[in-house]
């Protein structure tokens, strides 16, 4: 009889792998990608392809230069590429988008140690850097279903200018408005959300509390609640960006605090900031707070007496 393998228990493992999880996220993004191509045309498709290819290439080269194992097959670079492309206007110069991919993968992700180590969401950080570097191209929004380069204002932009906005909810729900590639079609994003829930890739905690907090504040501030939910990047951010494993708290309590924080910051920026939209900044700020939140919300071990009670017991 040959040599027997000896290893530590457990000897059984789930079939879910990092690669499978990332594939599920990509599948969940397919409806939104299709919607963006339908709404904004072939430029959307080009940007998506360019962004994914650049991201994967960056990941490959970066790992090669750093003499680390190749990680492109975990598909996380593909997800980052898609998410960044979804967060830019379809009229953006592809070179700018490629610069964003380099920032996301090389600077934000790999320089901090690769998958699982980045302290902020790579795609969002890259988007913020692009927004500050190229405010013009990153702030002009092509009209949906328009063959020419006509631009329009986004609903939140109109509201930010203190002008009256008359929403057509059905149009907003289907994504017929100016905005970033992937954020406009609420229907497509919600299909992706349901898929992620069914596949148990994410729990509903963060998206629902994030959107719920934003809706509540919108109501308190006297804004139009449905417009606030359907416009801007709230759905895309709440479903696909705020739920990023690496940059959101591990604990349930922590996730609740994190999501409430995201919702509050988003609405504060929208109402009082000079920017029309605040999803990116609010998620990034909460990403940075995640380690602190996590430390403050450690679960109480099973059967462990709370600190106060222990003292009482000692006094008795």
């Amino acid at each position, binding site marked *: 009889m040959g040599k027997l*393998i000896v290893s530590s228990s457990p000897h059984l493992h789930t079939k879910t792998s990092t690669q499978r999880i990332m594939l599920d996220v990509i599948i969940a993004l397919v409806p939104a990608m299709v919607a963006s191509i339908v709404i904004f045309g072939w430029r959307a498709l080009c940007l998506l392809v360019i962004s994914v290819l650049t991201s994967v290439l960056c990941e490959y080269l970066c790992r090669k230069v750093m003499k680390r194992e190749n990680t492109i097959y975990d598909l996380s670079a593909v997800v980052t590429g898609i998410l960044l492309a979804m967060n830019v206007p379809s009229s953006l110069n592809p070179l700018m988008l490629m610069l964003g991919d380099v920032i996301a993968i090389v600077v934000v992700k790999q320089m901090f140690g690769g998958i699982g180590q980045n302290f902020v969401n790579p795609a969002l950080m890259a988007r913020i850097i692009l927004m500050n570097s190229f405010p013009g191209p990153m702030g002009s929004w092509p009209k949906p279903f328009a063959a020419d380069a006509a631009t329009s204002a986004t609903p939140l932009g109109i509201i930010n200018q203190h002008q009256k906005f008359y929403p057509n909810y059905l149009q907003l729900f289907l994504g017929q408005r100016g905005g970033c590639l992937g954020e406009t079609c609420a229907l497509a994003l919600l299909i992706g959300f349901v898929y992620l829930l069914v596949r148990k890739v994410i729990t509903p905690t963060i998206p629902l509390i994030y959107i719920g907090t934003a809706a509540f504040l919108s109501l308190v501030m006297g804004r139009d609640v449905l417009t606030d939910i359907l416009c801007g990047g709230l759905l895309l951010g709440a479903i696909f960006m705020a739920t990023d494993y690496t940059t959101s708290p591990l604990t349930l309590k922590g996730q609740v605090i994190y999501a409430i924080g995201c919702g509050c910051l988003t609405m504060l920026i929208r109402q009082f900031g000079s920017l029309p939209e605040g999803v990116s900044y609010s998620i990034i700020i909460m990403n940075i707070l995640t380690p602190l939140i996590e430390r403050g919300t450690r679960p109480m071990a099973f059967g462990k007496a709370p600190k106060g009670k222990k003292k009482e017991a000692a006094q008795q």
Partner: protein
Amino acid sequence: MELSFPTKPFRTHGGAAVPHMKHTAQTKSVVMPVPNAVAIPMQMHVGAPCSPLVKPGDLVTVGQKIGDSKGFVSAPIHASISGKVKAIQKVQLCNGSYSTAVVIESDGKMEMCPDLKAPEVTDLKSFLQAVRDSGLVGLGGAGFPTHVKLNVPEGKTVDTLIVNVAECEPYLTADNREALENSASVLDGVFLVMKMLKLSRGIIAVESNKPEVIQQFRSMLSSDQRNSNNQVGVLPLRAAYPQGAEKVLIKSCTDRTVPMGKLPADVGCIVMNVTSIAFLADYMKTGIPLVKKRLTIDGSAVKNRENVIVPIGTRIRDILEFVGMKCEPAKILVGGPMMGMSVPTVDAPVQKQNNGLIFLDEAEAHEPETTACIRCGRCVMGCPMHLMPTKLETYAKAKDVDALQAYDVMDCMECGTCAFNCPANRPLVQAIRMGKALVKAGGAKK
């Protein structure tokens, strides 16, 4: 105080949806022919090892005491076959450690020891003595001497007996078969222990994936005259790993939380494995000590997957020969795949507390590659002890003893839920074991 019987299980935290793979649940157990020789280890329990009472050349009979110890936390050991003592030698056990063992060569007769008779039990003291004499240890896998467990320290009041028929480990069906094939003894044992320890409630806790067991006990209990007050009942549990872990089981059955570092008796509960309790009832009737064990034999390398009753001390090699191989096993597990150990040698003998042998072929033994932690939180959400395994792994690697203690590493029961759930296949349990060793070493230095 009147205790009510729970109508449904209480909520517990976390767990994992492990595949059940109970291939042998419907198959009647078979008795394995007596092997040519057995090696009976003197360490088959938690606590002090026994010293052999026989020497090479002695003739022994089934049930004859061949090992004992003066230690309180210990249980005597009996010959499982009749024949001649060939040697007293060191053998490697399933867990890789070495122990003195009495090697007996069979005479093929299985002659019973003439001194065996039903013990006289009049009070608690004589009952506990009888339990010790039977050689019984916790048969669910822990191997904790039963007479120690049943000896409730003064000042603690116990009111509930929980019979563990959860059997949440994949593959294993030995407890399932015991409950079906020996149900009368199980109930005898329940009423006996409850009478002796003056307990007012007996909960037979069964995972819902064993409907036949639930049905069988329910129908027997409804017509049992001893159960006039309905003090004993069946509680179907959610079939989720690790439902059968003692602290989880107590929480499910009674909603009581065993405080960290305390025992079930501290919350008024005694948990006994179903095979243990059935054996106890049988011993009180016949006086035959613990000399055989039912093992689930399963896995991709096995031809006949079935439950086999074998004499204790039978070498794994002989069992494998009896059930037949499909191919050479690449990995052999004793116990279930979640908490069981991988066996280093086919010459290791079966011990009292073993309940299954899983023979895995090359493909099934293959473990997926470990990748980076993506902080998905599945280990944290799944931990039945409410710990943060990914943090514990980090701190164990950094050898940060203070952080390990702050994150309650010692509360981990190594159930493997975290490592099962991990999509990056990180060796979390292994790291936590290392962390525990660091804390123990650190504590010793201070």
